[in-house]
């Protein structure tokens, strides 16, 4: 997982403050297209200066939700408030909101400069003010020397920045970004992620980003709202989403995970033991779990939280034996695919701490897996 550039900045968590007022309020919004429910009873509170990511697979309703915020679609029911003003019936051209389109939608018959100035001219501002603001914005996105170019003379990354400049120059209360980095190649995408965050911090605009790329969501966002079939499944910070998923869907969508199906055999307030058909030893979790007795539950363990060794662990719990089926050397780490006796494949990642690796486990070796009792996440759905 890429390190979040937010790690360096001071704590920004308005959602934990009960007195903080939300800036964008989505209340019980539903959108139907005929019989198809694209967005299903979604309520969200988004705070000022957040970068909120709507994450989900294609067709999950995230883009429809974004288009309702922009005003291109009307909710079938429910209300949308921005800065306490009811936006539900206001057309896009009267909203204090701007959108950056996935296709960028740059006007091909205008130069870079004219594209960026378009929204300001529409407001009827004075010519000198328009020029000043357009120049400042082009400097900010590093397109100063391309001002007179036509869009077809620009590269993909430059076009992306024109689209960003055009939507930001109007100083919107809220900027909506539809897959802002999807059309860029990997290197440029990583670079642009950081640039986007810098720009957002410089201008203090609230961002709502739609993306299908969980890594992008993790890097960019203050909080993520994961969507599935038109519903919000979980809202949380990137680390909450990764370490405390509330369902199998969330744990499997964000990062990779090994999920073991089982039943509680000991259910105490301070610990639980789970028996899994795939494992020889039970899973011991060092905190209580709320679940109906006898119900099927799942323990999800992240690949980096499992260790591999040749010796059998001394503990009675939290281990399994397996055979190495595949090793992928990634440089900074290696991915091991290990086959349990039940046939289930477990994915483990180990950092390559030492350069010399003569004693690393190798193909077809029998090994033991072990994890700490705080590592498994128990989910009931």
């Amino acid at each position, binding site marked *: 997982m890429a390190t979040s550039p937010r790690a360096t900045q001071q704590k920004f968590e308005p959602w934990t403050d009960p007195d903080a007022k939300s800036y964008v309020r989505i209340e019980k919004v539903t959108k139907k297209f005929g019989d198809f429910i694209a967005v299903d009873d979604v309520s969200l509170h988004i705070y000022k200066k957040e970068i909120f990511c709507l994450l989900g697979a294609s067709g999950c309703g995230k883009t429809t939700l974004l288009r309702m915020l*922009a*005003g*291109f679609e009307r909710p079938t029911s429910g209300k949308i408030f921005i800065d306490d003003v009811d936006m539900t019936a206001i*057309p*896009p*051209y009267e909203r204090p*909101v*701007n*959108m950056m*389109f996935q*296709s960028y*939608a*740059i*006007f*091909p*018959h205008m130069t870079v400069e004219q594209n960026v100035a*378009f*929204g300001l001219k*529409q*407001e009827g501002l004075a010519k000198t003010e328009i020029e000043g603001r357009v120049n400042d914005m082009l400097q900010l996105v590093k397109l100063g020397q391309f001002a007179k170019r*036509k869009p*077809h003379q620009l590269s993909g990354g430059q076009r992306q920045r024109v689209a960003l400049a*055009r*939507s930001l120059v*109007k100083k919107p209360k809220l900027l909506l970004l539809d897959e802002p980095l999807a059309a860029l190649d990997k290197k440029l995408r990583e670079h642009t992620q950081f640039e986007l965050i810098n720009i957002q911090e410089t201008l203090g605009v609230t961002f709502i980003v739609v993306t299908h790329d969980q890594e992008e969501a993790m890097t960019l966002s203050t909080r993520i709202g994961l969507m599935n079939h038109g519903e919000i499944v979980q809202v949380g910070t990137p680390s909450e989403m990764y370490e405390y998923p509330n369902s199998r869907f969330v744990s499997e969508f964000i990062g990779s995970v090994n999920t073991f199906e089982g039943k509680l055999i000991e259910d105490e307030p301070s610990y639980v033991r789970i028996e899994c058909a795939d494992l020889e030893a039970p899973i011991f979790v060092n905190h209580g779990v709320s679940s109906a007795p006898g119900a099927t539950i799942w323990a999800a363990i992240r690949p980096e939280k499992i260790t591999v060794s040749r010796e059998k662990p001394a503990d009675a719990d939290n281990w399994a034996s397996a055979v190495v089926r595949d090793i992928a050397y990634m440089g900074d780490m290696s991915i091991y695919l290990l086959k349990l006796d039940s046939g289930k494949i477990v994915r483990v990642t180990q950092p390559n701490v030492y350069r010399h690796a003569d004693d690393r486990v190798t193909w077809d070796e029998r090994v033991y897996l072990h994890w700490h009792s705080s590592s498994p996440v128990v989910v009931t759905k």
Partner: protein
Amino acid sequence: MKRWLTRWTPSGRSLVTSVPYLWLLLFFLVPFVIVLKISFSASQIAMPPYQPLFHWASEKVLQIQLNLGNFAFLVEDNLYIRAYLNSIFVAAVSTLLCLLIGYPIAYSMARSSPSTRNILLLLVTLPFFTSFLLRVYAWIGILKNNGLLNNTLISLGVIDQPIQMLQTDFAVYVGIVYSYLPFMILPLYANLEKMDLTLLEAAADLGCKPWQGFLKITLPLSKHGVIAGCLLVFIPAVGEFVIPSLLGDPGMLMIGKVLWTEFFNNRDWPVASAVAIALLMFLVIPIMYLDRAQNAEPAEGARK
């Protein structure tokens, strides 16, 4: 032998591209050169009815006789100038009318659902299933004094006396606009149909009301369609002969009619050819200029 064959047998590609060139050469360039040649000769009562350009003055002297009199004649007699100007005026007004009527039609076609779009497209091309001449004749039946239109208006009580519509400029405009409207609609439709609609959403997002979005985005982006449609209507309308002679005032001066009179009634092929060459020049020069302006910037606004 084999090497010789491969060297002289044209490759498949050049064979295919040579077909349209050959076609243009045979049926466009050669006739044009012949007309150009005739325009520089003088008329005579013979077969063919013009003097040859080249003749042997003596055994070793080839005389080329270029008669510029035909072109001078076009300038001297203001009949021709008036006919040219009138034709251009009629064609320009008709083109403008076609654009004003055709744009909304093409626009609504391009924005309708794909299934309706195909039906509408069929309806626009439907007139081509009947002969052009028949359709112009049908307008005589509609516009004449006891025709469909006058009778309907009288029976509705709008007018007491039939209005003289046939053999007026009005009838000519009706005929030209009706006949050439599809040539305006089709290129406009093709252009508007491939426009990226998210551009209009972007414009709305940046504060454009729908009509402003149309003026600032749709209209400029359809420029190439407008130019193509206007050329397709304007060029044939300038030289139009059938519509003014069937529907128009017999005294109406149109260059197509002048050409016809020179050629068939006066049998003055050189002057007729000069009229044709001058007309071509009138049309080709502005078109070449437009074409260059258009090539200066590549096609825009197409959906990716």
